[in-house]
């Protein structure tokens, strides 16, 4: 029986719980270790860099600087604006200046101390506001618009304006950045890296080392979490390891400890958005005009695409008759901000959700009603600000099913009664939607490859371009391959991701892992299966044969698949094949800001209930109900895990996680001592997650839908519920002033503000 669409355990679950699962730092390979010499200031000119004394430290094997780079001293993934080693100017505190390679970490640290580095400080920009004031940008503004915005504001019954800020977020993958480089013959190198994008690591290494990509193999066994933080930012440290390994002809490992990882690698982009919106008296939105600014940090990284995705999601699930959204990425002297689950989408949605909340508060309406009446609908209310038509819109169905199953209306009434009788604690309840566009918005990236190998004994190995970071991709791929080949899942092994098996891959990102790689694996399996069919026909003596669950059946008989594969081997039939997939029909013209960037949309909605203390600003999420659209789920158990985990990660971003730099560009919150991701007790005890039923999506692998990122944005329901609770401390129609993240301090000051209206 096929395990497709059935609940499955995680493919590595048993290895995880026994501690057998190996991560890069666990590999039993003797290797030299390394420490990075970091820039001591956020901005400055290097006056002197002398590593002579460091080289003499006992146990130090070598010290590398930009002078030692044989190829390009560049690791910028899209735009080449990021040096591997800074050489004249340092542009953020912690930027790599040199690498000390040693026999032990103690020796490497002593070597770092012995490096003579003198930097003349230059004025540094360490906040987004400062960058905006000084006109410091990484990109030009990009605008998406539809409708006559200016005209829509004229005579509008209600015009609101405001500023929305969202904070940064550290990925806090439990496994920090790590790469192990093993030199091989003739100047070639094998790099085992904790990266979401092995092909890009390979590409950057080839530039740094000045060799062809064929000289480099990058492998990813598994990651201890990625969340976007290992899409581009594994590359610099992998490049250092490779450089050292090739130069020294010895294995070299570069591993960042927690503090280094948090201080030196980029995070979710903080955004600042200025907006104005027009509504009619019933809360129907007439126009939205917004400027979004992202803090990109010191270099481009993926910031332009991230800012674009914020613009693509500034509508969320709402049809705005006249809309104009402009985005621009600011340049600061901070670590380069990067991909993080949602990739700008959450920041765009946070903006429009605040707009909806504000309108409901001002008008004294139930925010659920205000939101629902603004959803995308039938033509002409179905065209986005980038002029893609919204088809197969499921938000209405999700919304009504969830309102019903969560007893939203009754609970809202119960809550009013509780609040009326409670002085210090107030409850809040809210429902918010998510519509998230699926595809890399850089259209050519939507491609994937696979290599499927079937052995004569009827077992198979599957190689594909995706990487496993915990999301369950390998579990889904295994189910797809077993289904297509008719094998039992226990006879299918998903292999370490490696660039020599599948070339030119895209990052495992944009929620696309199973959509793209699943199709490629399916195609490869189909090729092998087609070759096995005639063999089975002969064995079974039947024209119509089928393969399932480890057996070939036909003509009333069944034989184990291993007999088919053995017969195929003897008959000199090839049992390996590659597969390839590209997403059809997607495009975006940046010049006109129009196109169809998304293959489809994923939908969901969440109802959150919170309790807020008016004495301390502390809150607790009491209950959450989620209905999420994962299409015809490839694996419901895996997908529910993505929804739950994404939601709580979003709650962290919006509530307890606060990235704080001091005025000099030093990260004050550089360890879990000071940076607080949600703990076990922060998860609501009542946490009801359901996947939408009867929801097969045409044109996607086996009717499924991407699920990695969209659920994170369901956490905006918690912010909406907190606003509701805050407003309960003030008089009717209190407009809430609540900063994000909604820390106890932000909430208490919001409560004070609400009380002051009474």
């Amino acid at each position, binding site marked *: 029986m096929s395990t497709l669409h059935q609940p499955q355990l995680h493919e590595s679950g048993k290895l995880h719980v026994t501690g057998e699962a190996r991560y890069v730092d666990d590999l039993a390979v003797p290797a030299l270790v390394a420490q990075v010499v970091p820039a001591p200031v956020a901005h400055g000119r290097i006056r002197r860099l002398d590593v002579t004394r460091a080289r003499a430290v006992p146990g130090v094997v070598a010290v590398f600087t930009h002078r030692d780079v044989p190829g390009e001293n560049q690791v910028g993934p899209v735009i080449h604006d990021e040096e591997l080693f800074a050489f004249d100017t340092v542009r953020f505190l912690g930027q790599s200046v040199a690498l000390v390679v040693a026999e032990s970490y103690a020796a490497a640290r002593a070597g770092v101390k012995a490096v003579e580095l003198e930097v003349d400080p230059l004025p540094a920009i360490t906040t987004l506001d400062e960058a905006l004031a000084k006109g410091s940008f990484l990109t030009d503004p990009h605008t998406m618009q539809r409708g006559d915005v200016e005209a829509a504001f004229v005579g509008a019954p209600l015009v609101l304006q405001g500023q929305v800020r969202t904070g940064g977020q550290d990925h806090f993958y439990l496994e920090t950045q790590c790469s192990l480089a093993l030199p091989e013959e003739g100047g070639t190198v094998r790099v085992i890296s904790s990266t979401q994008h092995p092909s890009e690591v390979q590409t950057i290494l080839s530039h740094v080392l000045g060799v062809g990509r064929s000289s480099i193999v990058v492998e990813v066994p598994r990651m201890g979490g990625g969340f976007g933080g290992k899409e581009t930012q594994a590359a610099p440290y992998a490049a250092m390891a490779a450089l050292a390994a090739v130069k020294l002809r010895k294995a070299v490992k570069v591993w960042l400890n927690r503090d280094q990882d948090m201080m030196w690698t980029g995070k979710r982009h903080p955004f600042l958005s200025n907006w104005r919106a027009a509504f009619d008296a019933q809360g129907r939105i007439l126009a939205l005009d917004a400027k979004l600014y992202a803090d990109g940090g010191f270099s481009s990284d993926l910031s332009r695409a991230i800012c674009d995705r914020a613009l693509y999601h500034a509508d969320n699930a709402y049809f705005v008759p006249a809309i104009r959204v402009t985005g621009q990425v600011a340049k600061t002297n901070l670590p380069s901000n990067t991909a993080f689950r949602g990739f700008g989408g959450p920041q765009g949605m946070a903006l429009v959700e605040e707009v909806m909340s504000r309108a409901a508060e001002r008008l004294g309406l139930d925010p659920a009603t205000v939101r629902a009446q603004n959803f995308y609908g039938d033509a002409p209310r179905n065209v986005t600000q980038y002029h893609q038509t919204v088809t197969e819109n499921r938000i209405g169905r999700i919304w009504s099913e969830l309102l019903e199953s969560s007893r939203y209306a009754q609970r809202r009434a119960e809550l009013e009664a509780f609040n009326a009788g409670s002085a210090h604690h107030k409850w809040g309840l809210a429902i918010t939607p998510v519509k998230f566009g699926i595809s890399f918005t850089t259209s050519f990236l939507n491609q994937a490859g696979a290599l499927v190998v079937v052995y004569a004994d009827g077992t198979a190995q599957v190689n594909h371009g995706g990487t496993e970071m915990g999301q369950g991709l390998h579990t889904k791929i295994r189910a797809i391959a077993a289904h297509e080949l008719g094998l039992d899942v226990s006879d299918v092994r998903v292999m370490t991701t490696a660039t020599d098996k599948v070339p030119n891959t895209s990052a495992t990102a944009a929620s696309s892992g199973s959509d793209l790689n699943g199709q490629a694996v399916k195609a490869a399996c189909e090729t092998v299966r087609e070759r096995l069919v005639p063999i089975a026909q002969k064995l079974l003596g039947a024209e119509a044969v089928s393969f399932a669950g480890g057996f070939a059946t036909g003509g009333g008989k069944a034989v184990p698949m291993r007999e088919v594969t053995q017969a195929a081997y003897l008959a000199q039939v090839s049992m390996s094949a590659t597969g390839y997939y590209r997403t059809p029909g997607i495009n975006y013209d940046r010049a006109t800001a129009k196109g169809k960037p998304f293959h489809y949309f994923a939908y969901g909605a969440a109802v959150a209930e919170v309790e807020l203390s008016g004495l301390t600003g502390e809150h607790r999420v009491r209950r959450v109900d989620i209905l999420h659209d994962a299409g015809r789920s490839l694996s419901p158990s895996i997908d529910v895990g993505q929804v739950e985990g994404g939601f709580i990660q979003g709650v962290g971003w919006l509530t307890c996680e606060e990235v704080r730099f001091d005025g000099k560009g030093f990260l004050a919150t550089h360890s879990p001592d000071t940076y607080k991701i*949600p703990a076990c007790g922060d998860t609501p005890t009542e946490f009801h997650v359901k996947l939408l039923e009867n929801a097969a999506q045409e044109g996607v692998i086996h009717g499924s839908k991407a699920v990695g990122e969209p659920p994170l944005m369901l956490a905006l329901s918690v912010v909406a519920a907190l606003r509701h609770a805050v407003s309960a401390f003030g008089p009717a129609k209190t407009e809430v002033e609540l900063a994000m993240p909604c820390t106890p301090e932000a909430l208490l000051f919001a409560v004070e503000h609400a009380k002051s209206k009474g």
Partner: protein
Amino acid sequence: MIRFNLNGAWVEASDVAPTTTLLRWLRDTRGLSGTKEGCAEGDCGACTVAVVEQGAKGPEYRAVNSCLLLLPMVHGKHVVTVDGLKREQLHPAQQALAEALGSQCGYCTPGVVMTLFEATYRGDLDAPWKLDDQLCGNLCRCTGYRPIREAAQQVAGTCPADEFSKALPASAPADTSLQLERAGQRFTTPATFDALWDELDAHPDARFVVGGTDLSLEITKRFQAPPKLVSLEALAPLRALTEVDGVLRLGATATISELEAFTAARSPAIHRMVRYFGARQIKHRGTIGGNLCTASPIGDLAPVFLSLGATAVLRSRATERRVPLHEFFVAYRKTALGPKEVLAAIEVPRPSPTARSVAYKVSKRRELDISTVSAGLFVDTDASNLVTVARFAFGGVAATPKRATAAERAVVGKPWTRETALAASKLLGEDLTPLSDHRGSANYRALVARNLLVGFFDETLTVRQPALQSGHAATVQPGGLS
């Protein structure tokens, strides 16, 4: 020579510096890579292992952070790691976690497994929220915790009659005393007071250590190795928790988890503070004395002890002396301890039934976080509701844990009413001088301190010494005025 039992077999760790952590030794020397480093500061739990300690009812498995545990601290003890759990079959904790899909990336998982391992053999996890307390020291970034909780519900308290249960009675720490000098570092664990005083006479510059939850950070975060350490862990009298004539005598090296169990039925105020003190792993190693002797302004025990009128018992070779706790904190991170003197115990008188007493801790995250503001609040009144004693102690709002004496003076002799509490809250600024940092601004801290005093009045209107309600209660619980 350090000798301990690792996964059932006695092992020796020779030629290692005494400041080597168990985590680094497991991974680097033994190649046991199942145990992970996630933060090296006891805040994530990926490195969790189980150590057998002598509990009130016999030997018990305790989940601890191996990243903070120095090798000499496990001398003579039994240690179980994730690499030693699987036998013919998975351990029930492993099985439950895998079946609940409680692992996604799997990196936090070995630590979660070991915390569930302790939970499997705990007999007192009788409410769902206690599972959160058990698990709050294990951060997971992938799952959102629901499946981990589910696994915990399945195994907690099941006490299977397996070989781990059977091994337990014979696994109590035996002789843990130790004297070790290696790589220019000295580590001593004296078993008697005479041996302690002798060590201090010979090495007056040695520093005390017990659980290492604070001191080990110098090693794992600042990469500095203290040259001389004296562990007080083997001195049994320092660990005792007793009650005599209405006074709780709390041994300085009793762990926070031991204090939590001891105070559950004896001191609601202390128990409430200890609930949110830290993770289970930290509570198992952190001690009363360690928390007080760092004299940190954000130590959690000081405010509640100050509010209860506690006395510090200080012991040296020659004498034992008593110092009121508010005189124990001399300045920022400085105490009244003299040279060659140890904090032996804290004596806490039980409040009279007429007294109102609560302790509060406010932090950015409810569990496993450091206080932004903490408070121990105590008011006693006479028959006509006039205040006879007031002690308002705060943490996080001055250079030391501090009594708000102006506010205290203002209420003594006054009727204990909401107006009195409100008026007193406005005087807190005379004693409290909060700073702004990444945990909170000065304004926020000042506002919270005022609100806590008013909230204290409201909460204690009917029940004067309210215990923590089950479940996830708010910091200030709804009382007479909700």
